[in-house]
């Protein structure tokens, strides 16, 4: 017996709108990365850690960006609350990218058994949640998915190439380092870093649907009135 609220969900449409090819692309990139890093066990866990957060962040920006959603007015007029659509698409995206990341984590462990599964998952889960949160919130604030993708990409690159330099100059910024390495700091600090990133990311994700629920804001009515 399927509960009535389950049938009210539009998983198939969400899957169609999220699309399979970006997930296939990140899967391919991970496979290539693992193949190239096969001879360097210290690099293996970094492959999933680097690719999945970027793929998730860049895609999350477009799950339901008001300016990139032509039927938004129709969605707002329907009995189903619009934030549902956002949650559904986000969960589908998390499911797709998360599955690829989990499979890649298991493959990584089979290639480099010294790492624990929890550690390999913590490496990509926390930055993915943070970048996803940043992307989706920026997309709702600016109404344009492209700004969410821009911010996520910029944060990803600056933390990947300059995160360690940032910490060496300002050590108190440790909660912000997306790619902090487990061996580079005390285990408690590393756990706190992962927890803070996860909490901040989930907080931003939770805030985004609230912005979308504001119909005037979503349709840009107040700004349009100001311009007139």
């Amino acid at each position, binding site marked *: 017996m399927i509960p009535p609220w389950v049938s009210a969900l539009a998983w198939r449409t969400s899957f169609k709108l999220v*699309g399979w090819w*970006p997930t296939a*692309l990140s899967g391919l990139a991970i496979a290539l990365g693992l193949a190239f890093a096969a001879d360097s066990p210290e690099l293996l866990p970094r492959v999933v850690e680097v690719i999945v957060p*970027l793929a998730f962040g*860049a*895609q999350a*920006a*477009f799950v339901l960006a008001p300016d*990139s959603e*032509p039927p938004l007015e129709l969605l707002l007029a329907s009995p189903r609350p619009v934030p549902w659509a956002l949650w559904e698409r986000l969960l589908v995206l998390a499911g797709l990218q998360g599955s690829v990341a989990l499979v890649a984590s298991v493959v990584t462990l089979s290639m480099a058994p010294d790492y624990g599964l929890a550690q390999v998952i913590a490496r990509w889960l926390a930055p993915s949640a943070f970048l996803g949160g940043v992307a989706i919130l920026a997309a709702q604030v*600016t109404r*344009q*998915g*492209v*700004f969410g*993708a*821009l911010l996520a*990409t*910029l944060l990803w*690159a*600056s933390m990947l*190439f300059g995160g360690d330099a940032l910490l060496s*100059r300002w050590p108190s910024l440790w909660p912000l380092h997306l790619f902090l390495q487990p061996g580079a700091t005390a285990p408690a600090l590393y756990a706190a870093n992962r927890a803070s990133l996860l909490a901040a990311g989930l907080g931003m994700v939770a805030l985004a649907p609230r912005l979308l629920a504001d119909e005037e804001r979503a349709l840009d009515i107040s700004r349009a009135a100001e311009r007139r």
Partner: protein
Amino acid sequence: MKALLLQLTGIAGYELRLQWRRRGLVVLIAGLVLMLALGTLFFSRASQRYSFYAEGAPRPAMNQSTMSGSWAAAWLILALFLPILAAETLPLDRQYGVRELFDSLPAHPGIALAGRVLGVWAGVLAGLGGVALADALTGRLAHGPLDLGRYALLWAGSLVPLALYLSGASLLLAAPLPGRRAAALAGVLVGIFSFYGRATVLSMDITLTPSRALWPPIYLDQLGRLLSSILEADYRAQVAALGIQTQYFGPTPWENLQPLPVICALGPLQLLVPWLVAWLWLRWKETR
């Protein structure tokens, strides 16, 4: 000829206005001004050259941006921001429902495409001009007089070609894509491809082999190295004239770099490939 030019400038003007209204250029300019100003005011303190100056030695007429290291930050912003911004230019027409309108214009699709690219380039150049002025002003206030000739050379030879190349290539490669999301993701890939190539692989080896010449970031890398080497040689000459010893070892001496004409020819040649892709796609679409 005059009608052709009018069509071209008309479409370019339309694209420039569209870019400005989408606020992307404004965000890019603000991000660059902020990053270069922060680099000038704060990060330059970590530079070896800065500590050399802090010892009380007379300061050679040297560009502040090169010594502060903020140039790398500007590269990061441009390489990652601009391709995403430019990529959605043509797919956006389909979302706004003006694609058919463009197709019905008397202008040839090739002219329309060139006009759109020129419009984006005009916006990027105007934005970078503003950023350069703001950066020069900050540098003047923070570090004293600048060598404006060298400063202009640095912009004209490194960040400007980078910006033109990335925005043009990204716009053209994303032309056949169906929507904004696909275009933005393609822009992310172009940006990472260029940035990662410059940041890691190319830093290890500067030899310009025929196969490596096909790889777009190599043009930007070679050009950047050439310019910084000229500036470095200038810097060394000034330091030597002052009779001061410095421990800082700058970029590769320019004599080891590839010949300038080869470097300058590579960029436009590499831009021809995406241009051909976009043009063939437009032709195919026209005959469908």
